C-alpha cells in the first residue's frame, strides 16, 4: 500500500495564501472500472417507440414473413451489420433477436472490412468467431452471444458483425437505423443507404459464413436494413464511477446532502413569491434564479424571509451567452455577509440548454464559465441542464454547419464533462416537434438512460418533469407520477420540477402551474413524501437482486404486432429493507414475473397498495401490471 499526500495552495490577487493537505492510499492492482455499451441499449432497455426512425426499433412490421425460409429448399444466408467506434474499446459480443422458427448451428463472426464503406469490392478479415449453439424452434427472442476472446477495436476502421442462418430464417425490419449514422458512444452504426444491414448469400456461404459484402438498401423485402444484431463493447475507465449514494457530494466542502436533503427535490426557476408554497409541499431547492440580474434582490429577500429554509442553486450567467461571466464575486461577498445565505447556496446552475440555442454555447465557453466560478468558489458543485434533443439522440439546432450525429454526441459528452450534476429538459408528455403525438412515460426513463450514457455513469443524474398540463388534459397528475417513477427506476438521483405552463413555445403563461392546480399539487405532495420515505434506498447503488423477468404482454414479442410491455426495475436497500421497484415501461397491461432468488419464499409488502405478494420457492415474484406504466414498489419485510 502506498500513501499519496497532496499539498495544495490557494493564493488571492493580493498574495494572501493558504494551503491544505490530503492523503489517499493506493493498493495492489485491481482492474479499472469497465464501462459497457451497446448500440441498442437504450432502445431495448426503456422500450422502443412508435417512430422508429428516430426513437427506437419498431417491431410492428415483423409479420410472419421474416420467420419463413427464404426459399425452398432453404438457402443459408449470412446476416450482419456494419459499425465503427469513436474510441478504442473491446468488442465483447452481441445480442441478436432469434426468429422463433430459426434452427440449426449458429456461429457469429466479427470481420474487419477492407474499406470504410462495405460493398461488393470490399473484403473482410476475420477478427473473431463465436458459436451461439444450436437453435431450435421456440418462442424466439433476444439471445446473448459473448465472444470467448474480446477483440480490440480502433477508430477509423469498419467492422462487420454477423451470423450465418443455416435455414435462411432470420428476423429483420426495414427500419431501426436512420438515414444517418446513429451514435451510442463509442459505437456508431454506418448508415449505408438508410440502413446498416449487410448480407451474403448463395452457394458461396461457408460453414461459418462468408464475409457479407452486399449492402442492403431500403426498401428491399427480405433484405431490409436491420437484422437485430446489437454489437457490444467495453472499455476500461480508470476514473471512479457513480452508482449511487451521497458520498459523491463529499468532494465539496459545502454540501452535506444526506442530512440536508434526503432525496433532492428542486423546482426550476420559480418566482420569489411562490417559494414558500413549494417548500411547504416538500420541495427543498430552487434551481436557477439569479442573485444579480432582474429580480435578484427579490430572490435574496425571499430567501431571507424564509429563514433560508430553501436551498439555492443560483444561475450565474446573465443569459447573454458571452464570456463576460463574473458575478460570482458579488455572490461570494453576499454569502460572507450572510451566513444563512452561504448555507443555503448549495451549488451553481451553470447553464440551461446550451445545446438548444442558436448558435449553441460551445463546451469551451462553458468551461470558461466553470473556471470563472471555480476560481472564486469551488466549494460547491455545478449543475448543467441539457435540451430535449439529447434524450432522443437527434438534433442539430444551433450546431455548426456540417455537424453530424458524431459531432453532436461528442459535444453532448463534452458538455456533460463541464458539470458535476446533469439533467435534461425533456418534457415528453407534450412535444410540439412530435407530429405523431406525445411520447409517453418511456421517454422519461430514456432521458435518464441517455444522461447516464453520455456521462459514462460518472456523476449523478437528476430527472426533470413538468408538473403542469401543457396541453388540455395532458399530462394529468397520474401521468406525472408514473413519469417520476420511470426516472427513479432508471437511476435518477434527484428530481427537478418544471412548473411553468407554456402558452406556446415562447410564452409562459403560468409560473406556478402546480400551485394553481390542486390535483397536481396534491399528487406531487404525496409523491414527494413517499420519495423521501425511500430516500436512502433511492439514493443507494443497485443491488442487482432481479436476475430475469418475463412479461406476458408480448404483443410485439418484441418482434411482431405492436409493442409489448417490457418491465424495467431497480433493486435497492436502505439498510433496513430491500426494495424492488418495477414498472411496465410501455403502454398496456401485462402480467410479469421477476426472478429474485434471494427473496425465494418470502411474502413482500407492496407499498401504497395495502397488499402483499408471495414470492415462489423458486424466487419468482408474479404480479399484474394492470394499466399503462403501472408501477409497483415491493419491500422485503
Amino acid at each position, binding site marked *: 500500500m502506498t500513501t499519496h*499526500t*497532496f499539498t495544495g495552495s490557494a493564493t488571492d490577487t*493580493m498574495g494572501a495564501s493558504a494551503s491544505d493537505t490530503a492523503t*489517499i492510499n493506493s493498493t495492489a*492492482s485491481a482492474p479499472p472500472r469497465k464501462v459497457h455499451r451497446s448500440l441498442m441499449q437504450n432502445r431495448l432497455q426503456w422500450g422502443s417507440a412508435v417512430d422508429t426512425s428516430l426513437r427506437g426499433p419498431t417491431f410492428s412490421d415483423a409479420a410472419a414473413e421474416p420467420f419463413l425460409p427464404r426459399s425452398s429448399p432453404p438457402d443459408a444466408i449470412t446476416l450482419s451489420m456494419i459499425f465503427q467506434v469513436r474510441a478504442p474499446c473491446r468488442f465483447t459480443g452481441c445480442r441478436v433477436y432469434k426468429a422463433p422458427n430459426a434452427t440449426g448451428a449458429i456461429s457469429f463472426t466479427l470481420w474487419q472490412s477492407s474499406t470504410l464503406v462495405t460493398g461488393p469490392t470490399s473484403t473482410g478479415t476475420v477478427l473473431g468467431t463465436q458459436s451461439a449453439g444450436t437453435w431450435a424452434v421456440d418462442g424466439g427472442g433476444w439471445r446473448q452471444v459473448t465472444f470467448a476472446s474480446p477483440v480490440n477495436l480502433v477508430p477509423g476502421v469498419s467492422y462487420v458483425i454477423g451470423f450465418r442462418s443455416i435455414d435462411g430464417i432470420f428476423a429483420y425490419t426495414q427500419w431501426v437505423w436512420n438515414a444517418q449514422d446513429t451514435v451510442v458512444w463509442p459505437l456508431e452504426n454506418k448508415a449505408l443507404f438508410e440502413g446498416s444491414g449487410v448480407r451474403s448469400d448463395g452457394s458461396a456461404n461457408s460453414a461459418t459464413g462468408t464475409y457479407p459484402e452486399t449492402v442492403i438498401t431500403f426498401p428491399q423485402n427480405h433484405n431490409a436494413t436491420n437484422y437485430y444484431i446489437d454489437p457490444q463493447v467495453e472499455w476500461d475507465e480508470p*476514473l471512479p464511477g457513480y452508482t449511487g449514494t451521497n458520498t459523491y457530494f463529499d*468532494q465539496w466542502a459545502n454540501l452535506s446532502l444526506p442530512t440536508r436533503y434526503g432525496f433532492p427535490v428542486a423546482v426550476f426557476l420559480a418566482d420569489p413569491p411562490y417559494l414558500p408554497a413549494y417548500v411547504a409541499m416538500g420541495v427543498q431547492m430552487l434551481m436557477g434564479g439569479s442573485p444579480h440580474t432582474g429580480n435578484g434582490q427579490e430572490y435574496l429577500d425571499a430567501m431571507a424571509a424564509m429563514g433560508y429554509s430553501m436551498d439555492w442553486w443560483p444561475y450565474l450567467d446573465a443569459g447573454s451567452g458571452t464570456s463576460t461571466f463574473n458575478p460570482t464575486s458579488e455572490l461570494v461577498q453576499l*454569502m460572507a455577509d450572510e451566513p444563512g445565505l452561504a448555507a443555503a447556496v448549495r451549488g451553481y446552475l451553470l447553464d440551461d440548454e446550451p445545446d438548444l440555442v442558436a448558435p449553441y454555447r460551445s463546451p469551451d465557453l462553458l468551461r470558461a464559465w466553470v473556471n470563472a466560478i471555480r*476560481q472564486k468558489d469551488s*466549494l460547491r458543485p455545478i449543475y448543467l441542464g441539457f435540451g430535449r434533443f439529447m434524450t432522443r439522440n437527434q438534433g442539430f439546432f444551433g450546431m455548426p454547419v456540417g455537424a453530424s450525429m458524431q459531432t453532436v454526441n461528442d459535444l453532448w459528452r463534452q458538455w456533460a464533462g463541464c458539470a458535476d450534476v446533469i439533467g435534461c429538459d425533456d418534457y415528453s408528455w407534450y412535444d410540439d416537434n412530435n407530429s405523431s403525438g406525445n411520447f409517453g412515460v418511456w421517454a422519461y426513463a430514456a432521458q435518464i438512460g441517455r444522461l447516464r450514457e453520455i456521462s459514462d455513469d460518472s456523476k449523478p443524474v437528476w430527472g426533470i418533469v413538468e408538473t403542469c398540463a401543457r396541453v388540455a388534459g395532458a399530462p394529468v397528475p397520474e401521468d406525472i407520477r408514473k413519469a417520476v417513477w420511470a426516472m427513479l427506476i432508471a437511476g435518477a438521483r434527484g428530481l427537478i420540477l418544471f412548473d411553468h405552463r407554456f402558452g406556446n413555445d415562447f410564452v409562459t403563461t403560468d409560473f406556478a402551474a402546480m400551485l394553481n392546480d390542486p390535483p397536481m399539487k396534491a399528487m406531487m405532495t404525496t409523491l414527494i413524501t413517499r420519495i423521501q420515505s425511500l430516500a436512502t434506498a433511492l439514493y443507494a447503488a443497485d443491488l442487482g437482486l432481479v436476475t430475469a423477468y418475463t412479461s406476458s404482454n408480448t404483443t410485439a414479442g418484441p418482434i411482431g404486432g405492436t409493442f409489448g410491455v417490457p418491465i424495467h426495475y431497480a433493486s435497492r436497500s436502505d439498510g433496513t429493507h430491500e426494495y424492488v421497484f418495477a414498472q411496465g415501461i410501455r403502454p398496456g397491461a401485462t402480467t410479469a414475473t421477476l426472478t429474485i432468488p434471494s427473496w425465494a419464499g418470502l411474502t413482500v409488502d407492496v407499498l401504497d397498495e395495502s397488499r402483499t405478494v408471495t414470492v415462489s420457492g423458486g424466487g419468482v415474484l408474479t404480479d399484474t401490471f394492470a394499466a399503462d406504466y403501472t408501477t409497483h414498489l415491493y419491500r422485503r419485510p
Partner: protein
Amino acid sequence: MPAPRIPIVDLPEQTSIVGTDLLVVQNGATTKKMLMSVLTGTGEVSVGPDAPTDASIELWYDTDEPSSALGSISGPTVDTGESYRLIMFSDGTCRAIPVSAEPPGAPTSLTLTIRVNSVKLSWTAGSGATSYRVYRDGVFLTSVTTTKFRDANVTAGQTYTYSVQAVSFYGLRSASTADQTAFVDPALNVTPYIDIRVWPPTSIALGNRAIVRVNAIDVDGQQLAIALGTDVGSLIATADPTVWYLDPA
C-alpha cells in the same frame, strides 16, 4: 412671431422651466394634442378638467418648427384639476410634478462595511423614497432601489467618502446623509479558505485514478490561483482549474 428657442443643454438639474413654451396634453390613445396654456414664467400649469384621464404632458417649443418636442413627461397619469411644476433635467428628460409633492425624507444611519476590495453601504430608508442616489467623494456613483449598495471599484490603501440621497416617485431629492468615510486598509485582506478532498475518499487500486479536488474560496471575492502537488504518483490537470486526477502508478 415665434417665441425664442430655449437652450435645453444649458438647463441645470432640477431647474424649473420659464419662458413662453407651449404646453400640450397628449392623449396617449390618439396622439391628439391639445393646447392647454402658455407658460409665462412660473413653470407651473394647471390641467383642465376636460383633459383625458390617461393624458400625459409634453413640453414643446414654440418655434417655427412645430412638432419639435423637448421630451415627454415621465411619471404619473396627469390628474385633472392638479397643478404641476414642470422640470427639465440635464439629461433632456422632463417631468410634471404636482405642486403639492414633497421631497422624500432623507436616509439615515449610513453604515459602511469595508473589505479589502469593496465597501458595502447600507442605510435606513427615507420616507417616501423610491430610489437612492449614491455619491462617492461628492460625485454621483449610481442609483439603487434598495437600501444597500456594494462599491466594488475600490483600491486598497485609498480613502473614500460616501453619502446617499433619497429620491421620490416624482424625482424630488432629499437632503443627503452625513458623509461616512472608508479607509480600504490592505490589512483587511482575508486569507483564502482551502480544503483539499479526494474521491474516492480512502483508497484506490493502482490501475485506477482518484479525483483530487481543491475546495477554495476567498470571502473578498478575489480570484484565486490554485496549485497542487503530490509526493507519489502523478497529477493530471483537467479543464477545471480546481480538479486533478491522481495516477498512482
